[in-house]
């Protein structure tokens, strides 16, 4: 059990900076997910925590002790790799016990721990098999088992689910969460899949181009993204972004999206947006789920867009509708009963309480 601190971590490969100064405090027993597009430096960060990658500058501390020069074998961390990295010449039992055998644990202790981990992961009957006789999901479990038996200070996961098919991925996601609830080891988990990040994490760290964009609980990131990048990265389908300006009419603020679309800003936000009146370089952001069909008996705070639907994608529980505002694709989510049809007009209501206003120059949410 340990807490991990990253202080001004920089990693340079030849002439490119993969990680450009990261500060992060990971509390004991916490499940932290590093998420971001490929090449954002999340894997490099994880590998620096593991000790597999040297740190160009900055400090990594475990329980307050700087471990920059401690080789991976002495850091007492366990890692689960994307391709599982099971030793092909060892049985599952040997794979899981390898770390303990290297540390010369007594045989009975090794057996006890392996059995315990195998029971948690439900792989007891696989212990005598070789990795090549296992399915992808089983290999994944063994890789996790290898980490669990070590009872390390920190678990590190490097995109552990990306080699699994979609169905198994959901199943293993739950499994990882269940295991963490049981063993309560500090965990750093890297993924490019924002759904994985949201479902697993106590806190999500969104990274982009070697920097941290935002750190927060999953719901905070969803509701209060700090930057346009986070707003666009978290949530699926992605948030709609439209060029806009803020204007004042009849004592209330409105967001103008086009000549004939201007949506009223909720009164609670007037003070926040007043300073940006008439400014250019602003973007309006609204998630598809906050753009739904207008209620026939009127909405509480009407902000309507009359859309000419170009494409509809029925998903069963909902239907995605696509239309354009000034040439930009906009997506909304409507009830399947709302009668959305391609080529037809539809009145959509924007839930302006959930809107975001973004400064184009800084990329920050205002």
């Amino acid at each position, binding site marked *: 059990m340990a807490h991990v601190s990253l202080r001004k971590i920089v990693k340079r490969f030849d002439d490119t900076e993969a990680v450009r100064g990261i500060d992060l405090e990971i509390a004991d027993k916490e499940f932290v997910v590093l998420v971001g597009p490929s090449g954002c430096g999340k894997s490099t960060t994880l590998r620096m925590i593991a000790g597999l990658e040297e740190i160009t500058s900055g400090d990594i501390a475990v329980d307050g002790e700087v471990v920059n020069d401690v080789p991976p074998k002495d850091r007492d*961390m366990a890692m689960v790799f994307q*391709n599982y990295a099971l030793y092909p*010449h060892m049985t599952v039992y040997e794979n899981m016990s390898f770390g303990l055998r290297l540390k010369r644990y007594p045989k009975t202790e090794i057996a006890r721990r392996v059995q315990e981990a195998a029971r948690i992961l439900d792989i007891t009957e696989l212990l005598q098999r070789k990795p090549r006789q296992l399915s992808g999901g089983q290999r994944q479990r063994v890789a996790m088992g290898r980490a669990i038996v070590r009872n390390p200070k920190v678990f590190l996961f490097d995109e552990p689910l990306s080699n699994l098919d979609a169905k198994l991925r959901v199943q293993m996601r739950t499994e990882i969460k269940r295991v963490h609830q049981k063993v309560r080891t500090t965990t750093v988990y890297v993924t490019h899949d924002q759904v994985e990040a949201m479902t697993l994490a106590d806190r999500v760290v969104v990274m982009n181009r070697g920097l941290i964009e935002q750190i927060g609980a999953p719901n905070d990131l969803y509701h209060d993204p700090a930057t346009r990048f986070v707003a666009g990265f978290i949530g699926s389908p992605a948030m709609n972004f439209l060029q806009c300006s803020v204007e004042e009419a009849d004592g209330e603020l409105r967001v103008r999206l086009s000549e004939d679309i201007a949506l009223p800003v909720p009164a609670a936000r007037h003070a926040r947006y007043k300073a940006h009146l008439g400014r250019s370089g602003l973007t309006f952001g609204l998630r598809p789920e906050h753009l739904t069909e207008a209620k026939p008996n009127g909405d509480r705070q009407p902000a309507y867009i009359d859309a000419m639907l170009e494409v509809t994608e029925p998903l069963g529980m909902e239907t995605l509708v696509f239309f354009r505002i000034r040439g930009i694709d906009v997506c909304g989510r409507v009830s399947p009963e709302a009668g959305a049809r391609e080529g037809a007009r539809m009145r959509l209501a924007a839930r302006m309480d959930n809107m975001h206003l973004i400064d184009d120059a800084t990329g920050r949410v205002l």
Partner: protein
Amino acid sequence: MTVASLHHSLAPPRRRKYGSMSAERRWALHWSYFFLVVFAIFFLTPPVYMLITSFKSSAEISAATNPWWVSHPTLGNYRELLTSAQFLTFFRNSAMVSLIVVAITMLISIPAAFALSRMRFWGSATLATGVFLTYLIPETLLFIPLFKMFALLNEYAGIELINHWWVLLLLYPTLTVPFCTWIMIGYFASIPKELDEAALMDGANYRQVLTRVFIPVALPGLIAATIFAFTVSWAQFLYPLAFTTSADQLVLPVGIITSLIKGDVFNWGQIMTGALLGAAPPLVIYAFLMDYYIAGLTAGATKG
């Protein structure tokens, strides 16, 4: 309906076409077998003739009867050679040299290949290329300067290397180490990087990564390299011919040629028996480990 009728109309000519192809195939197969037999005769005649001659007495050989037939088969040649102290010395020298060279080769090339394939350091890429180039340098280019070097070493430092069988322990690794390192680099490079990282995370140091993960995983490559090192050491002819002369220091290939050929007297029955016994260890290894042998053979050019 339309599809079915279409199939129907197409079927007959198609079947005829297949028929002609299979006839063509069968014809090609017959010719293949014919030529394979011809080539097999060409390739196997010398060893078979060795075997035939080894069962003949000197009397039968000099009688000049049908050379391809043994009228009075005898194991005399084998008995004589296998009880000859001299021949057994050759055999022992060969075995010692080959086995020790295999050990030296593995001790040098496995760690080097591990370092060159995994741990990038200054000059490592150049060194890998250098290893390969060394493999291309033939022994016929080096034996004269080496001979002179060793002679000088004796003159100035009093270290007598020439005319001792163990001088070959210094010379043979120059032939075996570069190639073995080269193919081991190839085998190690094909092991996914995550595997050593997983071992490092599991608490292994570099030595343990090598011995507990890399060596077991790359075992087929290791066997291929071992076979190569052994057969090259066993077969080497130029170095022992140049560096050893005393009868008790000779290895098999040179021993057979210098001791069994006495002046103009060729005891062919014994020479062939000796040659066959000399060829036996590589042949036995080949018979049992053919796939590894061939993997090692093709690895040099196809890997890297």
